[in-house]
């Protein structure tokens, strides 16, 4: 395998993994606060279509990202109001949010179908971003660097800051947190809003990073992968990174295997297509086996909190 091929694979896999990683980081924070939002896919679709529209209309990809984040956050606030204020069932509400996102994005995206969009490319000078070797470091869209910074930021926030400790405490025992005097519902609103914004940005990654046009259901189920990754990564940001890149690697191999032919042709293409999902599950199951005892799930995950007052 030539160096060029390796670099090409790395760049493709990182691009393919980035939206999943961003969405999963957001959902990780949401779940750490004790809320299970299954509507990631829906929020991603909202972010994708609004992000596309903003970037297409203004020609500015940064505005596309911002608009995507805003759209995801607004969608998440519908969920937050229903589940946190009205204590509705989180699973059902999350599924409804996904259906809502699919419908909304199809309707809103109608006028944009087939319109082309400029990809959100590296902001480094071409000497670096187009350099045959150095592009493996400098050749990415700002969204990729954003996702990596967020891995560290989320880890630091949860493990090293007081606000992060309070958020974990709320997810671990809402009643205890309430009786010490922390605003359980308020903390969860903020976590859900963060998760929504991240899912919106993840959605905006699709037109800005991967397929520069609008088609219905553009995110093609990646929101569900993000949800599964959070569980298998045992709610640890570092493992999310590994899981997301592993997924991306195998998804990328599918493309290159088709092109390479030869021995790769032996396997049916359906198997190649399902391989990313299978491999992600297998490897992360192995990971969680090693973490004996607890799975790391926040104790109050998915339970509505109704303070007695």
């Amino acid at each position, binding site marked *: 395998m030539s160096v060029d091929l390796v670099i090409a694979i790395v760049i493709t896999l990182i691009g393919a993994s980035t939206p999943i990683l961003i969405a999963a980081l957001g959902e990780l924070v949401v779940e750490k606060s004790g809320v299970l939002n299954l509507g990631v896919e829906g929020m991603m679709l909202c972010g994708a279509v609004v992000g596309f529209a903003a970037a297409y209309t203004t020609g500015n990809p940064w505005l596309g990202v911002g608009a995507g984040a805003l759209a995801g956050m607004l969608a998440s606030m519908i969920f937050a109001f229903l589940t946190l204020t009205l204590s509705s069932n989180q699973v059902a509400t999350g599924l409804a949010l996904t259906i809502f996102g699919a419908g909304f994005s199809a309707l809103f995206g109608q006028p944009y179908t087939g319109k082309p969009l400029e990809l959100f490319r590296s902001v480094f000078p071409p000497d670096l971003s187009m350099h045959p070797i150095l592009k493996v470091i400098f050749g990415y869209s700002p969204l990729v660097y954003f996702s990596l910074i967020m891995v560290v930021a989320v880890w630091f926030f949860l493990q090293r800051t007081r606000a992060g*400790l309070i958020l974990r405490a709320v997810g671990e025992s809402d009643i*205890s947190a309430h009786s010490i*005097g922390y605003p359980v519902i308020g903390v969860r609103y903020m976590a859900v809003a963060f998760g929504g914004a991240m899912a919106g940005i993840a959605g905006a990654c699709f037109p800005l990073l991967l397929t520069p046009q609008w088609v219905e259901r553009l995110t093609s189920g990646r929101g569900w992968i993000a949800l599964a990754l959070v569980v298998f990564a045992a709610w640890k940001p570092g493992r999310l990174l590994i899981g997301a890149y592993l997924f991306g690697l195998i998804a990328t191999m599918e493309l290159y295997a088709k092109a390479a032919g030869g021995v790769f042709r032996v396997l049916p293409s359906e198997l190649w297509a399902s391989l990313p999902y299978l491999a992600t599950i297998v490897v992360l199951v192995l990971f969680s086996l090693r973490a004996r005892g607890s799975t790391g799930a926040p104790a109050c995950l998915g339970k509505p909190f109704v303070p007695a007052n």
Partner: protein
Amino acid sequence: MSDGAPNRLELSGIVKRFPGVLANDRVSFAVRPGQIHALLGENGAGKSTLVKMIYGIMQPDAGEMRWDGEPVTVSNPKAARRLGIGMVFQHFSLFEALTVFENIALGMDASIPARDLESRIRDVMKTYGLTLDPHRQVTTLSVGERQRIEIVRALLLNPRLLIMDEPTSVLTPQEVEQLFVVLRQLAAEGCSILYISHKLHEIKALCDEATILRGGRVVDTCDPKAETSRSMAEKMIGAGLKVISKPAGREKGRERLVVQHLSIPAIGPFGVSLKDISFAVHAGEVFGIAGVAGNGQNALLLALSGEEVAGESDMIVLDDMPIARLKARARRLKGMASVPEERNGHAAVPDFTLADNSVLTARDRIGMVISGLIRPRMATSYTGRVIDTFAVKTTGTKSTAGSLSGGNLQKYIMGREILQNPGVLVVSQPTWGVDAGAAAAIHQAIIDLAEAGSAIVVISQDLDELLSLCDTLAVINEGRLSRPMAVKGADIEEIGLLMGGIHGDPKATETVHVHPENVHAPAP
């Protein structure tokens, strides 16, 4: 009040309504600076609601609270802590997946640099003789250690009023005495203490004044040192306390349960292994197992009930049948019933109705299931019998287990097992968090079952309970069981030492107070 200083805390006319219940009805009392003030009452008397309002978790519907003579509104626990109110909860407000240090940090209102906080924690632990490793995860700690976290957390705030909700139910006599030393030291420093407990002899030993609540109202205020345990218990329940009738000359019958050289490796990373446990329980005998939480009681209960099957089949013998290789259901069929410590989630399914909960353990012996089909009428009539016989306060067989108060649920669970007429009953913590009336009823039911010829094993951390209930007593420590001793004439210092095991401080026994009046009185 006579010394001129304003009361630390004064409540007047506090009212709190819940839908359908008047939880606090014009409650008034005062706590002086440096006073250790007891709040007494049965479960449901309104104590918890009252202290939750003092600590700002709930808001009163009417009434006034004064702090150092000034009217105050405590809108949330943060405001309470700002005033100088600390609280140690009965159901600990701890986060199991977090470390001791993180749990304590969460109780601080300001962000304190980790290193400063750690040195302050070590200072407080040193001053009050409390030991804890700040970096252990809470799941790995015993109940007594968990309580210490709560106490350290409260003490770090230099409280001027410390609320203690049922603090001693999980401690050894030595630990209780150590706690009392801490509390007296705090009181001498001018901190007021509001002490909630069912253990009347402790209140007599510790408290300066007691306010007694019944049905949400203050029914009496008294000086506990001038009262007897019995007179206070009667004020609390508003009627004469049922005396446990324990026939004096009960004969021991044949051996019904024999455990021989039972050894089981630890289950799970924090489990305790059982090491060479041997004892025999006779018909008509109540056999007590004392010990501090986390010394193998859970493993022993699981091994006896059949939830964990291990060892050779003759390590546990029930009525001459080796049963150690049988699972729980097969053991139940042979007459072995068990009641685990955890009521909600282990002994009963909180979201199931009482009738459905009866099916879970009584189906075989009562015949509630025929060819896989449940006979609802059998389940309902049996459950109704349990409710009537054991005076369980509930709206009926269709109410869920989770809707019952702790004491009532425990009465139901005990009744469900006892009416199956088991040959051997193993029960862990039968009266944990149960009010005096229900505790007396449960104790009487245990004695009556023994009287009828069953053999009974009671695992409890409440030594008073075991001393008043059992004929024979052994102490479990680090998975080893001491030799059994007759309760009559048992040496409490020796029991305390055995409970402390090799970690026990021999000097600590010098300060243990024996409460002879309590040994044979009904455990309150």
